[in-house]
């Protein structure tokens, strides 16, 4: 028994090997947050008046708000005056000049994860001009999308070129006062992505590779807005299985999705930010507000996420099922190891008739990892015929980690059907022994069992992403077992 436990411990105790040195910012405004900061950010980005006003209103609301204290996470208080809220997009002069200068361990990880060659350099922070192809790859994508009338650009570009769309939809899903971090983000957001799919258009490609290349340096207050007009479809992939270089501890992003009549948005995330060392020092705090609005009848929004990084994750991708017959889905795998903490889950708000939602959450805790699933299902009075199915499974590796489930169910319409299933299991010593008795190494066995546990979620990910995600779990659990 002791031996098995120590094997498990070895496997899960592997350290994240890719922390980065903090580089000193060149073109940045002084630390601290005031109305002046907000004005400077807006001015530097050459924003229209309405946006400045919007930011300022958010800032004023934020001043009156306090950080949420209900989440099951613990961290020292954040000093918001000690943060730099604007820095110019980095020229990458200080980065490595070529892959030869990059930490070979990091390259090994990329290889294990199967990251395409031309992307490895970008991810490792090699100056873009030194990277063959990437620019033309991006341009080819852009041309192809433009043909269909799809707008896909950085948020800043959208503000310049499509202010009317930004004005119409920004904050329409996540209002500035929604929560403390959303208000902060609204006041000082740096950049992010903007997508608009015109009526009847099916986006011909996963919006992924392009994003990975271009989403760098969006800063710690990322803002994303995706609109699928009537009968439109888009699948959007955020993040990357490769460890991301990042110098900011606090990340407070806001993602808003709008699906109009009969439209469909599939949003997939893989998040692998620096989780901190074994004691949890230096990891990223990831406080994200993600929400989708099924505004039109028969619309559908699916969130799929694989969360393995960050010291603290606070995140509840949600769907407001406003349109009749609309569908919301949430598929999640969250892994916490060492001292990582995750408080994550979803909210399904049923307002329209015959709305349906599905929630599949898989939590894996290892080491001293600490994890909570928090799910709200609300069926409004008018939501006749609404249905929800929630399944929430936790897998524990070792005996020092923890998992908790907090389901909140509010039903105001008697015709609603809400089902909730939950389970907690431990990777059994017997499962591990069985696999090893058949000749598998302990590492491969753990990785196989964990991937099996996550299968229902992985099958929702776009193919290439699913393969990466599987490898990522393997790498995240890898240890020194021979």
């Amino acid at each position, binding site marked *: 028994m002791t031996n098995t436990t120590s094997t498990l411990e070895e496997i899960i105790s592997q350290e994240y090997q890719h922390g980065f040195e903090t580089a000193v910012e060149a073109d940045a405004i002084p630390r601290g947050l005031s109305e002046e900061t907000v004005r400077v950010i807006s001015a530097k980005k050459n924003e229209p008046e309405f946006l400045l006003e919007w930011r300022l209103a958010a800032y004023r609301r934020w001043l009156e708000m306090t950080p949420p204290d209900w989440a099951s996470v613990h961290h020292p208080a954040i000093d918001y005056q000690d943060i730099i809220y604007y820095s110019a997009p980095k020229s990458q002069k200080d980065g490595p000049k070529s892959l030869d200068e990059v930490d070979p361990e990091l390259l090994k990880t990329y290889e294990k994860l199967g990251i395409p060659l031309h992307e490895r350099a970008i991810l490792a922070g090699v100056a873009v001009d030194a990277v063959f192809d990437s620019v033309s790859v991006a341009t080819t994508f852009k041309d192809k999308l433009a043909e269909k009338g799809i707008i896909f650009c950085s948020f800043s570009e959208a503000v310049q070129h499509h202010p009317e769309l930004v004005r119409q939809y920004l904050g329409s899903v996540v209002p500035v006062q929604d929560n403390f971090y959303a208000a902060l983000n609204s006041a000082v957001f740096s950049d992010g992505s903007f997508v608009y799919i015109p009526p009847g258009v099916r986006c011909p490609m996963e919006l992924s590779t392009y994003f990975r290349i271009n989403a760098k340096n969006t800063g710690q207050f990322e803002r994303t807005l995706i609109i699928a007009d009537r009968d439109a479809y888009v699948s959007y992939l955020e993040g990357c299985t490769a460890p991301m270089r990042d110098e900011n501890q606090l990340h407070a992003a806001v993602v808003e999705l709008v699906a109009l009549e009969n439209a469909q948005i599939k949003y997939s995330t893989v998040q692998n930010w620096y989780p901190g060392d074994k004691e949890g020092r230096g990891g990223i705090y990831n406080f994200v507000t993600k929400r989708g609005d099924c505004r039109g009848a028969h619309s559908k929004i699916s969130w799929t996420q694989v969360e393995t990084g960050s010291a603290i994750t606070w995140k509840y991708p949600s769907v407001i099922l406003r349109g009749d017959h609309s569908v919301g889905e949430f598929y999640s795998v969250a892994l916490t190891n060492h001292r990582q903490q995750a408080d994550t889950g979803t909210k399904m708000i049923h307002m329209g008739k015959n709305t349906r939602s599905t929630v599949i959450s898989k939590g894996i805790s290892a080491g001293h990892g600490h994890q909570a699933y928090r799910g709200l299902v609300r069926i409004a009075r008018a939501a006749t015929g609404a249905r929800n199915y929630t399944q929430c499974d936790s897998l524990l590796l070792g005996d020092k980690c923890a998992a908790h489930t907090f389901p909140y169910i509010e039903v105001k319409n008697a015709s609603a059907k809400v089902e909730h299933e939950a389970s907690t299991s431990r990777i059994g010593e017997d499962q591990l022994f*069985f696999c*090893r008795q058949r000749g598998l*190494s302990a590492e491969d066995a753990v990785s196989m069992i964990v991937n099996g546990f996550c299968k229902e979620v992985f099958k929702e990910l776009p193919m290439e992403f699913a393969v990466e995600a599987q490898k990522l779990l393997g790498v995240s659990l890898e240890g020194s077992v021979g």
Partner: protein
Amino acid sequence: MLIIKDLHASVGDKPILKGINLEIKAGEVHAIMGPNGSGKSTLSNVLAGRENATVTSGSVLYQGKDLLALDVEERAREGVFLAFQYPVEIPGVGNVYLLKAALNAQRKHRGLPELDAMDFLALVKDKMKLMEMNETMLYRSVNEGFSGGEKKRNEILQMAVLEPRLAILDETDSGLDIDALKIVANGVNSLRAPDRSMILVTHYQRLLDYIKPDYVHVLAEGRIVRSGGPELAHELEKQGYAWIGDEPAGAGVKHGS
């Protein structure tokens, strides 16, 4: 093939195996019988390397090597196979996926090239015919929702694919209906080979009607108290184990040497 000398093992503080002596030569089939709780599964587990039982003294030589010094997976790759008394379920892991990973891990260890999906499927499907198993079982999760009998058949399928040197079958016959018993026995018999030895742990003579053992041993309270030929099983079937205690411990271990 296998030489066990004065093997003692405990689970927690409780001594379970109290001096096992046994020698098994290549090609031989040995049946081990004995009352519930006598230590049959513990012996099987100790040979396979499960860590919940601790060897306190004694030695085990396997193909001339110190078996006890090897890790669980090393033993497996060296050809030790354990068919479990209670096969475990692994949700989400495809039966075929596990088998392929296992076979390739073993082939790699032996310096053989890994089998690709096509060759592997051909091999497995062939063995499945032998076990009269439905191919859909391949694509289900390991043992999940399998009936008791299906789980046991699945164990022997794995044995047939992995082609071990030393197979330990822990009560593979329990829970099988008559037809399934014949199929399993048939599968096991087809794997009998001059360079392959087997240990059959069983409670019933019935299995031994189909798989003729070379030797039968009775394990009681952590010791082999009697050994003999196939006729010993018949005797046990009639008499039960009430006579145990009348016999000197460790009697009759001199077979086969």
